[in-house]
């Protein structure tokens, strides 16, 4: 079955948006223009894009500390994202959350998360609400290989399966948790091996191939939407930058050769080559997409820099709903 050109171009656009946003954030961080920790999603774009294109606008996702890509893939607004990264009042979280808590509940993006694995039960709760209202929505949880070692993941996976909830588990296996390779912390290689233990179907896909991710996500979402419960997708992927920040080479815990090997399979390059071959998007047209997106990112940076800092009083707001005691 051929994917429609619209879907292909949409996936491409979302990946390019993530890439440019992240590269720009990395540059700003390098110039000390962004406060706090920055976990970049570069290299993993095909996962968020492939999954989110398979979702409806009102489906939900929950995310991780590496969350910008998920928000962009769900349609996040560059200006409010960039402003949040700079801690400005116009940001998605009014400057209170920053990179690690970026979210847009209107887009069904239930938040990046500073606590590894904590987004998993939250997505399961959203899935429960969807089932409760019987509104046909599906929730997706993105989480890392490392996160699959934490209790919250296991409890939530079992619960989702036991309660037959419309949830899709998407594990972004990039082989590392911070600075420790997976094999030092797990006796299995494929996180998906765990799915069977909870009674969920599970599949491995090439996380550098957006079409592969999209095909699996489409099937998993269809299962969830039709009341057949949760399923599990493990996307094999790789982050091109350090755990946080923008270092690429010379890291003690992984080799430059390994990075080079993965970079040969840059998800955007791979996809653009195929799109060109199949006549869907010429190299020039792709270039135009990049330029347009890069322009939008630049504009967002200007917007963010010109935005005001949060007012001091706002520190005390938003602790509770209603009147602050």
């Amino acid at each position, binding site marked *: *079955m*051929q*994917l429609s050109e619209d879907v292909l171009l949409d996936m491409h656009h979302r990946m390019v948006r993530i890439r440019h946003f992240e590269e720009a954030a990395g540059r700003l961080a390098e110039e000390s223009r962004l406060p706090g920790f920055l976990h970049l999603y570069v290299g993993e774009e095909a996962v968020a894009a492939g999954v989110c294109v398979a979702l409806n606008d009102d489906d939900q996702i929950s995310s991780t500390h590496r969350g910008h890509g998920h928000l962009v893939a769900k349609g996040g607004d560059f200006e409010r994202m960039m402003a949040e990264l700079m801690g400005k009042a116009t940001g998605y979280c009014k400057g209170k959350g920053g990179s690690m808590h970026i979210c847009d509940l209107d887009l069904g993006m239930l938040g990046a998360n500073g606590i590894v694995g904590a987004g998993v039960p939250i997505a399961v709760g959203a899935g429960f609400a969807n089932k409760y209202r019987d509104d046909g929505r599906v929730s997706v949880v993105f989480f890392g290989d490392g996160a699959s070692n934490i209790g919250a993941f296991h409890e939530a996976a079992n619960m989702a399966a036991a309660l037959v909830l419309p949830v899709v588990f998407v594990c972004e296996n990039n082989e590392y948790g911070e600075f420790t390779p997976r*094999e030092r912390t797990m006796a*299995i*290689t*494929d996180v*998906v*091996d765990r*799915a*069977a233990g909870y009674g969920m*179907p*599970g*599949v*491995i*896909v*090439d996380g550098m*191939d957006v*079409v*592969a991710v*999209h*095909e*699996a996500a489409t*099937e*998993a979402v269809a*299962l969830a939407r039709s009341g057949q419960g949760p*399923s599990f*997708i493990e996307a094999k992927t790789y982050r091109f930058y350090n755990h946080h920040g923008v270092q690429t080479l010379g890291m003690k815990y992984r080799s430059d050769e*390994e990075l080079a*090997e993965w970079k040969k399979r840059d998800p955007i390059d791979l996809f653009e080559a*195929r799109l060109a*071959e*199949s006549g*869907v998007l010429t190299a020039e047209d792709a270039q135009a997409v990049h330029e347009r997106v890069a322009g939008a990112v630049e504009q967002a940076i200007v917007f963010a820099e010109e935005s005001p800092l949060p007012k001091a009083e706002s520190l005390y707001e938003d602790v509770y709903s209603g009147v602050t005691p």
Partner: protein
Amino acid sequence: MTATVGVIANPVAGKDIRRLVSAASPVSDMAKIGIIRRAVVGAVEGGAQRLLITDDRRALGLRAIDGLSLDAEVAFLDAPPYDSGVNSQNAAAIFRDRGVGAVIVLGGDGTHRDVAKGWRTAPVVAVSTGTNNVFPRQVEATIAGQAAGIVASQQPPIHKVANQAKIIDVELDHGETEQALVDIALVDESFTGSRAVWKGQSLLEMVAAIAERATVGLSSIASRVAPTTRHQPGGVHVTFGEGERFRVPIAPGLFSEVEIASWRRLRANDFVEMSGPGVLSFDGERDLVLASGRSALVTVSHDGLWVIDIEKVMSLECGEAC
């Protein structure tokens, strides 16, 4: 010569998208480790003096023999850094060069295809750990291993204990060649994507070397019009389009409608030309994009892997007594 058994275990077999579309169960690393361990025990029992085992990032092989006290020498091939079909292919070529007497292959159709690409006429004991497998059978690894051990140590004439399999050769217009063991199909796609083929409507044409009724997958389609066992020479060419409709088990647990426009039997070395655009699938896996204007020449011949018949080997072992 030292009786040597090779073990090729594909670490990624049994985890693809068919887990989602067709309720195929995933095969975990632990399950594979158990299978390798039983095969190794069997091989030594059968007389293997040396075992050559593939290694991989998961260390399936190493973990499989961990703690076993084996009356045989065990060596591992260097673990390749990435999972790829090329690993099984390379391992098969190394086994050929090192005088391996029998190869235990743990995987699905795709794994066996990789082995054939590395060593076209390897003597194999084919053990299924993949998904919808036509080429390897479900056999208990202990006995499969034992049969391999017997063949490697007693070296009976190979045609007495094995059947030579068919092989599909594909020649691409710029000289590149490819192989398949069961079927090759041209599908109406632009991407290899998640690789499996599970939508009947996407099929354009196919050539099957094995078209047996009791199988699942593309091979079962060809069997509807021109059943051809793995032992008969030649194959079947099917083109899809307006014509006769069939419902076939295109993947485990998944039936799909296909419409066959025409078909013909192929004799050994007849060839079929498939033209792009489309994606070529080999043994049920989309693997190669055939751009428009490019074509592939497909032939079926009977000079592939030697598939060891476990039943025959075991009766050789027991002699008249059993």
